[in-house]
C-alpha cells in the first residue's frame, strides 16, 4: 500500500462554519469556485471590490462553462446571499468571460450563460479555433447578438 499523501491544506481549514459569513467578512479576498461538472471545467473567480471605493462591489471572471444551469444557479445563490450584488458603479458584473477552447466540456453551457447574463459581460476571450459543434455555433450567435456591448477577442487577433 502506498503511503497516503498528506493533505496540503491544514485540517483546521475544514472545520464546520458559516461559509457565507466568512466570505462576507473577507470583502478584500478573491473567492474561487471550481464547479463539479465532471470531466470538464466551469470556474468563477469572485473578485474583491476596489478597497479605496466603499461603493464598489465584487465582479466575477468566468473561465469556461461546461454545462447548463450550474453556473447560473451559483450566480443566483451568490446574489441571494449578498456576495454578488448588483454593481451600483460601472455595471459589468462579468468583466471577462473566457472560452478556453471549443470542446463541449468547456463551452457546453456557454450559449445559455451568454443568453442569460450576456448583457452584464464586457469581454469574451475566445481561443480562435473554429469548431462546428452546436455549442460553438450557438456561442458565436450569442456573441453576435451582444456585439454592441461585448468585445470579442481571439488569440490571433491584434
Amino acid at each position, binding site marked *: 500500500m502506498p503511503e497516503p499523501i498528506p493533505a496540503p491544506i491544514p485540517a483546521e481549514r475544514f472545520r464546520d462554519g458559516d461559509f457565507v459569513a466568512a466570505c462576507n467578512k473577507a470583502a478584500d479576498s478573491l473567492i474561487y469556485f471550481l464547479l463539479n461538472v465532471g470531466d470538464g471545467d466551469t470556474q468563477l473567480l469572485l473578485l474583491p471590490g476596489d478597497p479605496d471605493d466603499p461603493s464598489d462591489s465584487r465582479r466575477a471572471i468566468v473561465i469556461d462553462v461546461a454545462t447548463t444551469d450550474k453556473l447560473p444557479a451559483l450566480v443566483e445563490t451568490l446574489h441571494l446571499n449578498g456576495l*454578488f450584488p448588483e454593481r451600483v458603479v460601472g455595471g459589468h458584473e462579468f468583466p471577462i468571460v473566457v472560452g478556453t477552447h471549443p470542446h*463541449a*466540456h468547456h463551452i*457546453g453551457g456557454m450559449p445559455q450563460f451568454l443568453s442569460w447574463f450576456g*448583457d452584464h459581460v464586457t469581454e469574451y476571450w*475566445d481561443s480562435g479555433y473554429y469548431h462546428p459543434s452546436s455549442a460553438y455555433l450557438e456561442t458565436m450567435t450569442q456573441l453576435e447578438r451582444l456585439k454592441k456591448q461585448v468585445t*470579442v*477577442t481571439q488569440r490571433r*487577433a491584434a
Partner: protein
Amino acid sequence: MTWPPAHPEQPVVTHRPWDPKHPQAKEFVNEYDRLVYVVIDEIVEDWVDLSISLWPHADAYGRLRFLDPKGAVDLGTTRKQLRRLLESGEFPTGEVDIGQSFAARVKDGTAAELVEKLRGQSEHGQDTTDLGQLLQRPVDLTKQARMLARLASYGALLSTLPAELEDRWNLQEELET
C-alpha cells in the same frame, strides 16, 4: 437591466429545418425529427467523444440555431465503432478527425427521445461500444459545418470593429445577405 437577470426566454426561430444542400437534402428536411447533428468533439488515443444535437434550424440570416435549451449531449465511443458507422453511410474513408460532422438517423424512435435517453444516464451523456445500435445512415457534412462555424465566428468578431468601419465596408449588409 436587472440583476441578476431573469431566465431567458427561448428564441423565436422560424420553423425551417436546416437544408445542407446535400444530394439527400430532401430526406433531411422531411425527416428532421429523426435526424441528429453529430460532431467529433474530441479524440484521446482510441477514444472518441461525439457531440450529438437535435437537427438545427436555419434562422432568417441562415445561421444554424440549436433550440434545445439543455444543449448537446456527449456520447463516447471507440475509433473502430465510429469508423464502422461512417463506412455504412455516405462518408469518405480514412482516419476520423476532430471537427468532422455528419447527419445520422436514429435507429429507433425520434431524435429527441434518443438525446433525452443519453442525457438521462449522466450529465455528460454516456459511452457506447455499439454505435450502430443507436445511429444509422450517416452523411458527411464536414465541409458545410466547418464553413458555417467559420461564418459564425466572423459574425461574432465583427463586433471588434468600430461601427464606422463596419459602415464604410458595408459589412452588416453583406452579413445579412
